């Protein structure tokens, strides 16, 4: 893998995903010839207009979806099935509704055969860490949207994954809860730097959190069209960093590239709605 001592935590090489529609007549290429790598300890944000195939790319990285062509390498080795070194945080609610908060957090450990007592002690520590001490016995429907996200975060992090895959995890939250969660994520991340692939349609969120922003084109046949290193100092406060001149400059530069794609995506959405 050339000059780097350690191979990337995840490398997507020349990924194409083509879906065949149900009748077998229509074909839809969501992602075309995309290559993308996340280095160990790097926080990469992927932005693109809505409906451009960002989630498809993430599902490929997770091993939940096999690409039509291309390779997925984890630490230089191709994956077979689920990417066991990755944790995935979904956009929508992914907690098991029949398990209370602590049992949801222990789930991953249970699957790995960790004894119940040990798993509970660990889960308790994680719930405390995400600020949910005292809510162990609550079922998901008894928790607010932000609290459910915290449980999801603990559920993922308790397994100590090397790579975090995040699919617009905070998009359903209100603005205040959202920046709180973003700061918390940065805190947890800086404690032991994992590799992160963070998908979002929100450019501000992308810049505030990441080391590098990758811009995707509008679908179909989405591919990366720009890459920007974010050289803002850490630790960051996501609310405050938005005011700095460097942030504004970065935002302007990236938005110039992203804007045309967003407009394209918007036009396509309108056309789709008109023909439907």
């Amino acid at each position: 893998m050339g000059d780097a001592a350690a191979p990337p935590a995840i490398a997507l090489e020349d990924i194409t995903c083509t879906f065949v529609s149900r009748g077998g007549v229509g074909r839809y290429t969501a992602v075309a010839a995309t290559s993308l790598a996340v280095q160990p300890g790097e926080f990469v944000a992927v932005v693109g207009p809505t409906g451009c195939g960002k989630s498809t790319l993430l599902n490929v990285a997770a091993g939940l979806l096999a690409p039509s062509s291309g390779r997925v390498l984890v630490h230089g080795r191709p994956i077979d099935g689920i990417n066991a070194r990755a944790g995935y945080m979904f956009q929508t609610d992914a907690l098991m509704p029949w398990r209370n908060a602590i049992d949801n957090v222990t789930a991953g450990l249970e699957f790995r055969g960790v004894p119940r007592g040990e798993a509970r002690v660990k889960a308790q520590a994680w719930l405390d860490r995400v600020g949910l001490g005292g809510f162990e016995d609550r079922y998901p429907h008894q928790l607010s949207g932000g609290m459910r996200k915290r449980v999801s975060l603990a559920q993922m992090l308790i397994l100590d994954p090397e790579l975090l895959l995040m699919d617009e995890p905070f998009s359903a939250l209100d603005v205040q809860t959202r920046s709180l969660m973003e700061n918390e994520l940065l805190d947890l991340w800086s404690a032991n730097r994992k590799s992160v692939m963070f998908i979002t349609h929100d450019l501000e969120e992308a810049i505030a959190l990441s080391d590098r922003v990758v811009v995707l084109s509008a679908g179909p046949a989405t591919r990366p069209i720009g890459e920007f290193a974010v050289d803002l100092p850490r630790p960051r406060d996501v609310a405050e960093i938005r005011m700095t001149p460097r942030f504004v400059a970065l935002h302007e530069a990236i938005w110039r590239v992203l804007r045309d794609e967003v407009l394209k995506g918007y036009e396509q959405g309108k056309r789709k709605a008109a023909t439907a």
Partner: protein
Amino acid sequence: MSVRTAPAGGRGRLLVYHALLLAAVFGAWWLMTEPLLVSEEFAKKMAFFFGRPVQVVVVVWQWFSGGKIYPHLAITLWETLLAFAIGSVLGLVVGLWLALSPTASALADPYIKALNAMPRVILAPIFAVWFGLGVLSKVALGVTLVFFIVFFNVYQGVKEVSPVVLANARMLGASRRQLLRYVYLPSATAWVFSSLHTSVGMAFVGAVVGEYLGSAKGVGYLILQAEGVFDINTVFAGILVLTVFALLLDSIVTRVEARLLVWRPRQAETESM
């Protein structure tokens, strides 16, 4: 689950109204069968068709005080319980299997539909031939009734497992077997419990109808015997006892359900912190 809105005055007042309504029905029944307001001939006719409420209550009283009813009730309840348990387990297993195996499901689909569409009470005489006049033939009938309710609910339950929850469990490292145990099964059992009222009711129907069509014991048998000699009071006494026990079973189910489905969101649930 029905949502009842209590009239002004709350639950206590409502209970009083319930009691009053019941008393009114019994009062009307009594007045129709006694020659006080109506002619003697009419009262006799009514008593022949509907029995006399006082006599009915007396029969029920004698059954319970004399102890004659207990073995019959025990048999009926035992049949209900067996039919419910066997039907539920079968429905759960087959439902899970067909829901998770597309080939088996595609193959079995028309037959499942046909069996479900068939009026299964008609199987009772065949079961009597196969299993005799004892408990087994009633259980068999109850099982055919319960099975389909549970089966369709489990099938639905598995099909409606959220794909996100499933993908999440897979990402957390669940194997196929663990998915079955930790995701599909809890989701399916939730659906089974939500059909508990119907399936317990059906098990009860299976037991009583089975007894009614041919047996030597059970409440259905008591009713059958009384009918044979036009003892309409005893028939109504049997119906009364069955109704009360069906209500009792239903209230037990409601309690069990509330305990097992704590994780289910209820409407407008508020919790004090």
